[in-house]
C-alpha cells in the first residue's frame, strides 16, 4: 500500500490491483438470460446490443449497396426498375448514415468503453441509456413501416418539394422515424457529456483524459447542438406532408432552399459526428501498437473541439449550386477550408507518433494505416469540393459519392473496424484469428479502392449521382466499381466468419493482450459487472508507455466517500511521492 497525496487536505490510500486472468465472474455471467439483457442498465450490455443492431443495419444497407452496384452493371435496366433503384439508394444512404454511422462508434463502442476509460461504474444516467437504445429501435421500426408501405425515394437528404408532394404517407413514417432516432443520439450525448464531467475516477484531470474521451466529448457537443435542429427540420417536413404547412414548399409560398439550410445545419456537423469518434479510436490504437506516448496530446485533443466548432459554420458548402446568395457562398467556402487544418494536425501528429515507436502490425493497427491513407484521400477530395468553381462542376456527381465513401467508409468504418478488433478481447473475452483478420483487412483495402477510385474519375467526367441509367461512356468505370463492391462483400463475410467463430471458441483472451496502458485494459476481460473490482486511481497520463505497468494498476485501498471530489489528484505531487 502506498499513500498518494491528493491535495492539501485529503490523502488517498491506494493499492495495486492487477487484473486477474480468466475471471470467474463477469458482466456476461452475472445477469443472464434474455430478460436480463433486454432490461439491463449496464452500459456494457447496452453497448453490445447497439453493436449487434448496428452490425445488422450495416449488413442490410451493405446488401442494398451490392444490389445498387449490380443494377449499375449495365445502363438502363439490369435487373430492377428505376423506382426500385431510387428507393434502394435512399434506403442505403439513410440507413448507413442514421442507423449505422451516427450511432456506431459513440453508442456501440463508446457506450462500452467510455465509462471504463473514466474508471466509472456506469454512465451517469443508466436508465436513460437503455431508453436511448429502445428509442433507436422504435425509430427503426418506423422506417421499416415506411418500407413495407412501399418505400420512399427522396434520397437521404429529403429535399423539398420533391419530398413534400407526391407519395407522402411513406415519407411521413420515415421522417418520424428519423425524428425519433434523433432523440436517441440526443440522450446518448447528454449522458456522455455528464458522465465525462461528473464521473471521472480520482486522479483523472482534464489533461489525463484519454483522447478517445476527448473525441467523444467533442462529438457529444456537436450532437447536442445539431441534432435538435434535425429534429425540428424533420418535424416540419412531416407537417409539410401531413398538412401542407408550406414553410418549405414553393407551391404554398415557402422556400425550398431554406429547407436545405435547415437540413445541412444538422447534416454537415453530422459528418463530424461520424468521423470525430473515429479519430478517438485511431489515437488509442496507434499509441498501443507503437508502445509510445502520443505525439501532441493537446493538439489532437483541442483540434477535435476546433473541428466541432468550425464544422458548424460550413454547412452551405452543400448548397453552392442551390441558388443561395453569393455572400453566403463565399463565406461558406472560405470556412470549409479551415476545417482541413485541425484535421491535418491530427493526421500529422499520428504519423509523428509512429516515429521511433515499437510498431506492431496487428489487425487493428493495419486498419489504422488503411484509415490514414483512405481518409486522407477523402479529406483532400473534400478540399477539392470546397473550392468554389470546382464544386460547381463536381457537385452531385459521382465525385461526391466517391468523396463521402472515402471519408465515411474509408474513414469512420475503418476506424470502427480498428476499434472493434482492438476492443474485441475486452468486450467478449475472446480472441479472433489474427491471420484471417489481416487477410480481410487487405481485401477490404483492395475492394474499397476498386469500388470507389473509378467513381472519382467518372464523377469528374460528368456522371451525375442518383442515376439509374447512364450514358455508355461510363460503362467500364461502373463495371470495375461493381466488381470492387463484390470483393468488399467477400471481405465482410470473412470478418463475420472469424468473429462469430471466436465467440464460439473456448479460448480465452488475456486481460490486456496488447499491453496497453489504457484504463479500460486494467480490468479483467470481459470486465466485471461494475467494470472494476476497485475504484481506480489514475496518476499518469493515459499514454505514458515509458512508465511501468504497475503504476497504471492502482485503485483505492479503502472505500472512500470523496470520490467525486478527488478529480484533482495532483500529478506532480504524486510523482514525487512515488519516486
Amino acid at each position, binding site marked *: 500500500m502506498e499513500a498518494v497525496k491528493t491535495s492539501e487536505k485529503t490523502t488517498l490510500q491506494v493499492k495495486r490491483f492487477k487484473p486477474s486472468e480468466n475471471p470467474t465472474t463477469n458482466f456476461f455471467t452475472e445477469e443472464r438470460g434474455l430478460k436480463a439483457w433486454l432490461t439491463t442498465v449496464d452500459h456494457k450490455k447496452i453497448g453490445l446490443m447497439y453493436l449487434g443492431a448496428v452490425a445488422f443495419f450495416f449488413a442490410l444497407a451493405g446488401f442494398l449497396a451490392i444490389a445498387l452496384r449490380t443494377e449499375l452493371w449495365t445502363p438502363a435496366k439490369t435487373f430492377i426498375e*428505376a423506382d426500385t433503384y431510387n428507393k434502394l439508394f435512399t434506403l442505403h444512404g439513410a440507413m448507413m448514415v442514421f442507423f449505422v454511422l451516427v450511432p456506431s462508434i459513440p453508442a456501440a463502442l463508446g457506450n462500452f468503453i467510455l465509462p471504463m476509460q473514466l474508471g466509472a461504474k456506469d454512465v451517469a444516467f443508466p436508465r436513460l441509456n437503455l431508453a436511448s437504445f429502445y428509442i433507436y429501435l422504435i425509430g427503426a421500426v418506423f422506417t421499416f413501416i415506411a418500407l413495407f408501405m412501399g418505400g420512399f*425515394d427522396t*434520397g437521404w437528404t429529403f*429535399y423539398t*418539394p*420533391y419530398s413534400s*408532394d*407526391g*407519395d407522402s404517407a411513406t415519407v411521413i413514417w420515415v421522417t418520424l422515424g428519423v425524428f425519433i432516432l434523433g432523440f436517441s443520439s440526443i440522450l446518448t450525448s447528454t449522458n456522455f457529456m455528464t458522465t465525462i464531467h461528473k464521473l471521472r475516477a480520482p486522479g483523472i484531470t482534464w489533461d489525463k483524459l484519454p483522447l478517445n474521451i476527448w473525441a467523444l466529448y467533442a462529438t457529444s457537443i456537436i450532437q447536442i447542438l445539431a441534432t435538435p435542429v434535425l429534429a425540428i427540420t424533420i418535424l416540419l417536413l412531416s407537417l409539410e406532408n401531413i398538412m401542407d404547412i408550406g414553410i418549405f414548399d*414553393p*407551391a404554398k409560398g415557402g422556400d*425550398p*432552399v431554406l429547407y436545405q439550410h435547415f437540413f445541412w445545419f444538422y447534416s454537415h456537423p453530422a459528418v463530424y459526428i461520424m468521423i470525430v469518434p473515429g479519430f478517438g479510436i485511431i489515437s488509442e490504437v496507434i499509441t498501443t501498437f*507503437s*508502445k*509510445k*506516448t502520443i*505525439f501532441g*496530446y493537446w*493538439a489532437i485533443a483541442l483540434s477535435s473541439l476546433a473541428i466541432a466548432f468550425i464544422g458548424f459554420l460550413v454547412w452551405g458548402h452543400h448548397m453552392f*449550386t*442551390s*441558388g443561395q446568395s*453569393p455572400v453566403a457562398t463565399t463565406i461558406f467556402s*472560405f470556412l470549409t*477550408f*479551415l476545417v*482541413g*487544418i485541425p484535421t*491535418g494536425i491530427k*493526421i*500529422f501528429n499520428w*504519423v*509523428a507518433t*509512429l516515429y*521511433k515507436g515499437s510498431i*506492431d*502490425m496487428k489487425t487493428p493497427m493495419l486498419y489504422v494505416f488503411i484509415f*490514414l*491513407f483512405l481518409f*486522407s484521400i477523402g479529406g*483532400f*477530395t473534400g478540399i*477539392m469540393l470546397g*473550392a*468554389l*468553381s*470546382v464544386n*460547381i*462542376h463536381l457537385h452531385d*456527381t459521382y465525385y461526391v459519392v466517391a468523396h463521402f465513401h472515402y471519408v465515411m467508409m474509408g474513414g469512420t468504418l475503418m476506424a470502427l473496424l480498428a476499434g472493434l478488433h482492438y476492443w474485441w478481447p475486452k468486450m467478449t473475452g475472446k480472441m479472433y484469428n489474427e491471420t484471417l483478420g489481416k487477410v480481410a483487412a487487405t481485401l477490404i483495402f483492395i475492394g474499397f479502392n476498386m469500388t470507389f477510385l473509378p467513381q472519382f*474519375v467518372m464523377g469528374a467526367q*460528368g456522371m*451525375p449521382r*442518383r*442515376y*439509374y*441509367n447512364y*450514358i455508355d461512356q461510363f460503362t467500364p468505370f461502373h463495371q470495375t466499381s461493381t466488381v470492387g463492391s463484390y470483393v468488399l462483400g467477400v471481405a465482410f463475410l470473412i470478418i463475420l466468419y472469424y468473429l462469430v467463430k471466436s465467440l464460439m471458441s473456448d479460448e480465452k483472451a488475456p486481460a490486456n493482450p496488447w499491453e496497453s496502458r489504457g484504463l479500460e485494459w486494467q480490468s479483467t476481460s470481459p470486465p466485471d459487472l461494475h467494470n472494476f473490482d476497485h475504484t481506480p486511481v489514475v496518476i499518469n497520463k493515459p499514454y505514458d508507455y*515509458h512508465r511501468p505497468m504497475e503504476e497504471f494498476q492502482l485503485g483505492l485501498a479503502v472505500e472512500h466517500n470523496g470520490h467525486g471530489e478527488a478529480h484533482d489528484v495532483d500529478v506532480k505531487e504524486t510523482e514525487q511521492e512515488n519516486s
Partner: protein
Amino acid sequence: MGRLFDFMLPENMSPLTADYTDGLFHFINEASTIVLVGITIALIYFAIRYRRKSSDDKTPVITHNNKLEITWSVIPLFITLIIFSWGYKGWLNLKAVPDDAYEIHVTGFKWNWAVSYENGAQTLNEIHVPQGTPVKLVMKSRDVLHSFFVPDYRVKQDVLPNRYTYVWFQAEEVGESQVFCTEYCGTSHSNMLAKVIVHEPDDFKNWLEMNGGAGGSGDPVEAGKELVNLNGCQACHSVDGTPGIGPSFKGIWGKEESLADGSTVTVDENYVRESILNPGAKIVAGHDNVMTPYEGILSDEDITNIIEYLKTIE
C-alpha cells in the same frame, strides 16, 4: 496540356467558363498527391524501420514539438488560402455574365427541359446556341428542384420552382454537348437529358428564323402533336403502346380506363381535359400520381388540339 490528371476531365468546350476550374482541379490534385505520397511513404517507412522487435522494446518519450505543430498548421493554411482565392475567382467568373450574352429561357419539369427563344421558337431537350457567343440561360422549374449541368462547360445550376436562376457559357466549337439533370427529381431523373447544339452563328440565325413564331400550321392534329412533343408528354406517355410511367396514348380514345379507386371511366373530352389540368383527380390503376398539372401552361385551345391528336393515335 498533358497534365497528370487530364484523363479525369471531359473535353473543355467553353474555355471562358472552364479554364479556372480545370486549372484549380489540376492544382489540387497535384498538391494532394504530393502530400498523400509524403504521408504514405512516412507510414510505410516507419512501419518497417520501427517494427517491433521484442515485447519489451523501449520507446523514447517524445510528447510534442511546437515548431512542427506550427509548420503543419501554417503550410496547409497557406495552401488552402490559395485554393480558396483561386476557386473564388473562378466562381466570380461563372457568375459574371458578359453584357452581350444571348439570352435563352429554359424550364425544367419532370423529366424534360423546355427551351424557348426570344422570337418565340421552342424546342424540347435541345438547346440551340450560336458558336463563339456568350449564352445566358435563364431557368425556372415547373415542379420540383432540378439542376442543369453541362460537364463540357463546367457549369451547373439548380433550377427552382419559385425563382429564376441562370448559367452562362460560350461554346467555341460547333458540335453537341451533353446536358444532365443533377438534382434528384424522381423516377426518370436519370433520363432527364438534353443536348446543347452549337451552330455557326449564321446557321443559328437561320435555324431560329425557321422555327420562330411557333404553331401556325392551323391543323389541330398537327398542332396537338407539336404540343405533345414540346411539353414532354412523351417522357411518360408512349404513342406506340410501350408501357411507361403514364399510360400509353396508343388506342386511348374511348377506352374504358380502370382507376386506382376501383371505379372506371371512359376516356372522353372531359376526362382528358381533367387529366391534363388536374391529373391527381383520377388516378389510373397501376400508376402513381406523378404527372405535373398543366393548369396555366396549356390553354383550352391547346387542350382541344391535343385531344384531336389523341383521337388519331390508334
